[in-house]
């Protein structure tokens, strides 16, 4: 119950101001199609440099929570999901809005987001210290395999092609080795003076997540804003609360599925909403109403994608293995403040850890309150032309990258990685494993080097890295995640071929 001691920290004027600002800003950013939660958090990192670590994390955590929920606004009122996590919300949320029940859909989405989110953060509060203590048993070889596990899990589960996902992870790990070697001081892969200090995490994160979205907005050309915002009539909040409680089955399914998916590294919120929607439909006695404006569809999808947020931070805060791409960006935010996840975080910086986690709990309530008031404004912002959004994001990316070390080199790195990633994404590569490789690469290398030194003095490298129950368990999980994803990819390919053959016959 240590977290209770640090609740007061969330209510200091600075912390509360950042929490409210991050929540409102996140709701508006989340509602804007094309601006993903990951990108929003990456763009905010430069603003946290001059803040205390706990305050910086409060801002990032509030943005993470509310961007996921904010995406429901444009999903309901514009039929454009603000983020991939809100795809399932569009199915019934927009249908409700078309029937003149937009306010009810918004209220249900924020109430169920808060309910799911609070449950998710409670899981984070109670599971994290236990796992962090367990992490004490980890030596260099285990930490090395954990870093490899983090990259392979995201590289295989979060992509369309297992080989390309793993290749992206390898590229990230290689990028992390650029610069001077820590032990020998040798130069490695420095082909341009901008790379002398290595690749800074923040400009890389901004480049990899923001620039591809800017170019994707350019790709749409001079496209006018397509859809109109549906007008929202007043709806008593009490009635929405009663409706949510009446639909407890959908709420429980969404919350449970979101929490479980969040705990599995690499899967993330994109599928949490869709899986919960599908299961809620299967278990509902009114399944024929799904897709036609049924409140259960909104409740299941939104409770799931916010219930995922807290648990996605459990593997991050305990084992340095982020549960989602946004959690990977948060890891970058932790590392730039010199804070390492695991026992270091809870033993040496309990104030930072618990203030951050508590702020996420309060953030869920604030998100619900402000969400209901900001929805109209957020929907208007979602209609801002893509040209303006693209130019604003590009400007923020350049200023944010430069401000990290007052260096144009960082801006060049950001732009090069971002432009390269946009083109690679068109061919099945993804940014998430590359980012994981970049963040976990130094952790893997430090533990590999340390482990090699210990191994040379004891039972040899093979025995040290491949022996012991924990090493073997971690290696088996790495192999299982790769094998499972490869099997799923092969099955999908066979299915596609069969579908094509059927179409050709028809």
């Amino acid at each position, binding site marked *: 119950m240590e977290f209770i001691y640090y609740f007061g920290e969330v209510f200091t004027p600075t912390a509360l101001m950042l929490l409210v600002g991050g929540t409102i800003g996140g709701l508006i950013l989340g509602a804007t199609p094309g601006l993903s939660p990951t990108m929003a958090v990456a763009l905010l990192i430069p603003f946290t440099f001059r803040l205390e670590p706990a305050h910086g994390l409060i801002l990032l955590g509030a943005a993470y929570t509310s961007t996921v929920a904010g995406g429901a606004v444009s999903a309901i009122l514009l039929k454009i999901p603000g983020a991939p996590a809100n795809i399932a919300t569009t199915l019934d949320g927009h249908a409700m809005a078309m029937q003149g029940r937009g306010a009810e859909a918004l209220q249900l989405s924020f109430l169920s987001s808060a309910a799911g989110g609070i449950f998710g953060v409670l899981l984070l509060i109670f599971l994290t210290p236990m796992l962090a203590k367990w992490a004490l048993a980890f030596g260099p070889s285990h930490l090395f395999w954990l870093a490899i596990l983090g990259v392979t899990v995201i590289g295989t589960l979060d992509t369309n092609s297992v080989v390309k996902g*793993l290749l992206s992870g390898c590229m990230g*790990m290689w990028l992390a080795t650029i610069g001077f070697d820590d032990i020998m001081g*040798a130069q490695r892969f420095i082909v341009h003076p901008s790379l002398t200090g290595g690749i800074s995490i923040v400009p890389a994160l901004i480049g990899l997540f923001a620039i591809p979205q800017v170019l994707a907005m350019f790709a749409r050309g001079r496209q006018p804003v397509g859809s109109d915002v549906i007008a929202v009539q007043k709806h008593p909040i009490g009635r929405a609360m009663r409706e949510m409680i009446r639909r407890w089955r959908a709420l429980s399914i969404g919350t449970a599925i979101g929490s479980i998916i969040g705990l599995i590294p690499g899967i993330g919120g994109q599928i949490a909403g869709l899986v919960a929607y599908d299961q809620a439909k299967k278990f509902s006695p009114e399944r024929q109403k799904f897709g036609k404006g049924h409140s259960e569809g909104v409740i299941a999808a939104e409770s799931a994608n916010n219930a995922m947020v807290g648990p996605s931070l459990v593997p991050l805060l305990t084992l340095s293995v982020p549960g989602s791409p946004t959690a990977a960006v948060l890891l970058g935010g932790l590392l730039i403040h010199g804070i390492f996840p695991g026992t270091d975080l809870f033993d040496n910086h309990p104030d930072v850890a618990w203030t951050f986690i508590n702020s996420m709990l309060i953030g869920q309530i604030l998100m619900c309150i402000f969400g209901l008031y900001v929805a109209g404004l957020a929907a208007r912002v979602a209609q801002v032309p893509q*040209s303006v959004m*693209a*130019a604003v994001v590009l400007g923020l990316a350049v200023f944010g990258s430069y401000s990290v070390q007052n260096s144009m080199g960082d801006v060049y790195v950001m732009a090069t990685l971002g432009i390269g990633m946009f083109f690679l994404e068109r061919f099945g590569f993804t940014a998430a494993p590359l980012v994981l490789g970049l963040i976990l690469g130094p952790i893997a290398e430090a533990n*590999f080097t340390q482990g090699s030194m210990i191994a040379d003095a004891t039972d040899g490298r093979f025995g040290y890295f491949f022996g012991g129950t924990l090493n073997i368990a971690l290696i088996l999980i790495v192999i299982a995640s790769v094998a499972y994803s490869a099997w799923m990819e092969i099955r999908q390919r066979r299915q596609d071929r069969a579908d094509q053959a059927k179409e050709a016959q028809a």
Partner: protein
Amino acid sequence: MRQWQHVIPSGAIAALGLWVCYVSFTQQPAQAFLFPRLISSVFVVLALWTFGRALLGLSRAGTGIGRTMFLNILPGLIVAVIYIFWAAEVLGFYSGSALAFFALLSLYDPAPNDAAKSWLRRIMITVGFILVMYLLFAKLLSVFTPRGLFF
């Protein structure tokens, strides 16, 4: 999407992988390149596998880049590259940003170009954005940006 498009990125990555592998295994001191050797070995195998599949026309993932998409991106990309790699430092961070911002609005804003109102709106948005950036970064965060020829 034409299959040959896959050959270009996978070929470039395979070439990068081979170079990384070559450097890792030839540079000294060996101790400093121990981890890069491990990574580059996996990197080059996966890169050559991907390249081989692309050459055989077996690459499936991704949507590729169509002609319309490429032509839509090109003007914005050119403006962004000139802004980042030249204008921000030579002209000055804020003046370079203002010019790039205005150019991007003019290129992609769906509002008609023959209406004076559209241009006035673009100028106002540009001035507003640069003002916010200046207040945020120069005043609040005390970030000293390159002055260049102007500001």
